[in-house]
């Protein structure tokens, strides 16, 4: 073939040309990301500039505000931009935080189990199971949530007294924080398990053996030496899972309840049965309002908050994973 005669092979696929072509491709992708950040921020600017920091604060009903914003754009009169996103942000914090906490706890135990304590047949089952759970499309989780979990919560877990006690404010039909947190936990825990167990596997065996040789049992060795050494991986996994959870839109649009309501933990345990709506599902639910300029700006403002926080989290995770390499995977 040609490559045995470099001069003939040269002109078309010369090293310099290939390097330039690939370099251009790389620059194009970097440029695309920059363009995306700039575009989203530019589109979002009217909403932020009209509201200032109050954008993030509480005040009034979010759903009414979104509606007014949309209608003002349709009417073509003075655009309304007033928007106070706190209920949406609070819902995002509650749902993401709740599921991250549960997922962190369970993923850590499962990762330790897979790496060290499970008998071989068990970890041979668990690993494909984790991979499968991570690859189920979010819409399937949403469908199962809406057809199985939500009716179950609405019919069996919420009592009639609880429904009556908040009857004037919201209806407790099962679309709730509890459903959202449960399903989101199942979605993000597998991601954490796979990153955690990679980290635990790369702990130098000598360190563990040293601890064992001192007479520390396997369980304590794993937690005191293994888990501590793999801390960067645990930070990375948690942070990457947070980024994924913040951006989850479709599943939460299906089961979180789609009401711009901020559940208040001070009300007692009932708050986990209350519906809400995080930031990302708000975009999905209002996507047909894009044609109205002020609504467009508001949705892009929400998107820019998501973009900023998700990018921040994933870059943090990346840095944490890089620092893990310093330990040198054995």
């Amino acid at each position, binding site marked *: 073939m040609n*490559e045995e005669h470099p001069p003939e092979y040269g002109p078309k696929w010369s090293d310099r040309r290939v390097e330039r072509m690939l370099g251009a491709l790389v620059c194009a992708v970097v440029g695309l990301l920059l363009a*995306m950040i700039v575009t989203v921020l530019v589109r979002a600017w009217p909403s932020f500039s009209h509201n200032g920091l109050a954008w993030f604060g509480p005040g009034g009903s979010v759903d009414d505000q979104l509606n007014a914003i949309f209608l003002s754009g349709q009417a073509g009169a003075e655009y309304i931009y007033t928007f106070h996103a706190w209920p949406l942000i609070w819902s995002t914090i509650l749902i993401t935080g709740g599921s991250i906490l549960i997922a962190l706890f369970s993923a850590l135990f499962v990762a330790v189990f897979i790496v060290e304590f499970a008998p071989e047949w068990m970890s041979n089952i668990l690993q494909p199971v984790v991979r499968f759970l991570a690859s189920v499309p979010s819409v399937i989780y949403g469908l*199962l949530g809406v057809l199985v979990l939500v009716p179950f919560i609405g019919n069996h877990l919420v009592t009639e007294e609880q429904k009556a006690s908040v009857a004037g404010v919201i209806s407790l039909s099962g679309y709730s924080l509890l459903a959202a947190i449960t399903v989101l936990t199942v979605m993000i825990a597998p991601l954490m398990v796979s990153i955690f167990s990679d980290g635990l596997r790369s702990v130098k065996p000598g360190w563990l053996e040293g601890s064992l040789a001192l007479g520390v049992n396997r*369980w304590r060795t794993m937690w005191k030496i293994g888990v501590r050494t793999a801390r960067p991986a645990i930070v990375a996994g948690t942070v990457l899972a947070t980024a994924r959870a913040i*951006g989850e839109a479709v599943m939460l649009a299906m089961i979180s309840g789609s009401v711009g309501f901020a559940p208040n933990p001070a009300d007692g345990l009932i708050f986990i049965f209350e519906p809400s709506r995080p930031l*990302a599902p708000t975009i999905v639910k209002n996507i047909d309002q894009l044609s109205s300029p002020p609504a467009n700006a508001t949705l892009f403002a929400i998107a820019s908050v998501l973009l900023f926080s998700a990018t921040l989290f*994933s870059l943090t995770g990346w840095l944490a994973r890089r620092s893990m390499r310093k330990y040198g995977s054995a």
Partner: protein
Amino acid sequence: MGSSVATPPAPTPASSPPPRKGKDAVEGSATWRPADRIGLAICWALGLLFCAIAVAIVAYLFVQGIKFLKPEMLVTPASAGFSQGESGGFSDALFGTLIVATMGIALALPTGVGIAVWLVEYGRPTALARVTESTIESIAGIPSIVLALFGTVIFSSTALGFLSRSSEGVVFGRSFFAASAMLSLVALPLIVASTREGLSSIPRHVREASYAVGKTKAATTRRILLPASRPQVATGAMLGLGRIIGDTAIIIVLLGATQNFAPVEGASFPLNYLRGAGTTLTNFVYEASPTGNLNQPEKAYAAAFVLLLMVLALNGAVDVVHRRARKVGTWSS
């Protein structure tokens, strides 16, 4: 929960290399405190819980899918009807998924492999390499709904109007082109990461041997390095494919609003469909669920079952590639 399964069986790792024996010796002694045993019980309970959830999802969807899925659903498009029996099937959604998957991966695979090759084999200037790495990481973290919104901006611009339906200068911005282009960004980071892993696991001396017989760097990459890392490239492509098939937000924003193909008039055969709006299985499931516009849970189950079969097939394929790659063996340095 699961107290019946919580008793840890005596750990007897049977066939293991010698150091394991030492561990068992330690294990046998009574160094395990009650707290440690409870911890191990939690491990077992959570591990079994994970398995139970996976089995429950698969079993439930199989039962519902087999109950509600009728073969004619796969070949009839959705249509307006009063009951779930009259409103057709989801053939358009099925084909939509196939189209989107093909086009998305056709865009993402060359781009991803190119970026990975540049990062591993060239990577100069170093600053650009670092920027690229963090770019890929950020793209992996960007919520797909944000990608979708960005897509509405670029594909509604007049310059790209030829990719979707446009009337009197107003560009509709929803088409298979638009959706596939944005979906390829979802798959890109997975392909880059996997290909990079493959390329950097090839030891340096392989490259040097190739240069020594007079091959250029480009030829080495094309003839030796890429073929050698084919399993990883394939894995990345399949993981990316799974993400493309499973993504819903981008489809809702950049393709959906209909349950049928909506070909553009005045374009030749493949282009009129690709420029038009359409639907995919994920979008169909979303719309057919009780929260969507159609509210046909039986059909949602059927479509979700088909989707799940695709995901399971992809998972199985990844496993096969892994196993085959392991059989061939890895590079010894």
